[in-house]
């Protein structure tokens, strides 16, 4: 299996608190890599470090297109605008089929500040799914989602892997079958 990024013996401290000590990680292409761990274990930190590594073309051992679709803790949506207007800002049109599959198409003319937490998360995820990039990096993508939505999102993930995509995510909720799991508790200090 080809590696997208490799981290070897990473030491990382924040305000004298050791987050990682001799931490190593390999992210393979065409698979889902889940970074799991308790709150404060450094899941977001490791995602950011990996993003930087991939962006800087360091530790890359593949010729795959390195463009990234990234979703952090925040949804990167403008609250005063509608779902449709938010997509216009990103020079995107809403993919009707995908939006209907995620049960958010009917919200297209609603302002973001009138939507629930889960609906906002699904809109942010839709932007990633429509991004045409091979590599999706997401921080807690399932937060605030109901069971049906989680099932739908997982189906989209598996479809992306079938299409030769790669997914890297931090997660402490749902378990994804057929994913490589990295448990930070085991690897950190």
């Amino acid at each position, binding site marked *: 299996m080809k590696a997208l990024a490799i981290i070897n013996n990473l030491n990382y401290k924040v305000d004298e608190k050791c987050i990682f000590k001799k931490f190593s990680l390999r992210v393979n292409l065409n698979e889902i890599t889940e970074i799991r761990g308790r709150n404060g274990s450094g899941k977001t930190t490791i995602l950011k470090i990996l993003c930087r590594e991939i962006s800087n073309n360091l530790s890359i051992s593949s010729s795959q297109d390195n463009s*990234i679709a990234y979703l952090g803790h925040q*949804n990167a949506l403008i609250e005063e605008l509608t779902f449709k*207007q938010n997509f216009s800002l990103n020079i995107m049109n809403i993919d009707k089929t995908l939006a209907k599959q995620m049960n958010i198409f009917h919200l297209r003319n609603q302002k973001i500040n009138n939507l629930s937490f889960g609906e906002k998360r699904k809109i942010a995820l839709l932007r990633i799914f429509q991004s045409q990039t091979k590599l999706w990096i997401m921080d807690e993508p399932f937060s605030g989602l109901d069971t049906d939505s989680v099932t739908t999102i997982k189906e989209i993930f598996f479809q992306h892997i079938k299409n030769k995509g790669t997914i890297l995510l931090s997660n402490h909720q749902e378990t994804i079958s057929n994913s490589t799991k990295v448990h930070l508790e085991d690897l950190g200090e």
Partner: protein
Amino acid sequence: MNNFLKREFLLFFNIPKNIYLPLSIYSIVFVIFIALGLPDDFKFANVFISSFITVFIISESSYKDDFESGAIEQMLFEDKNLISYVLSKLLIQTVFVFFPMLIIGLLFSGLPQNLSLAQFSVSYLACLLTLSPFFNLGSIVSIRKNNSLNALIIIPFLVPFIFLIEGLFISGQWNPNFYFLMAYFVFSIVFINLLVVEVIKIQIR
């Protein structure tokens, strides 16, 4: 750059408060000065004090919304060109806010004695475009501290700028003040904006 320009244009177009809030602040401060009935010596001081206050207030929220919503983080990790983002923001701000400010200033205060319309317009817009990156820098440096440091950080940069303004608009000495202003303008547009981008990266990481 094109995509960022479209983004910023749509943000201004779809959220009218981005236009009318700074213009209202500018007009209100301006009207207060007119109501005070200050002597002619202060005629152009009101234009610049109103401009300072307005640019300062705009800069407080220039990056705040995108920072808090996670949009800047997304741009950074998706490897988008943050320089284009910063410059697009400034360009759209010039069209929707700074240009109307120039017109309001001209309508209510007229022209300084020694400057033509073209000279005044170019130097006034250059002033605003010089000030804005300085205030933006202060804003982004202190974005995690509720912008409280904004004013303190930019004070050292503003001292020479204030002398230039006085020389150009109050004393009416075009040469050499305009050329110094242009040098300051280029410094601000290039160096300070680069600094803004670097500080954004540090704040996100």
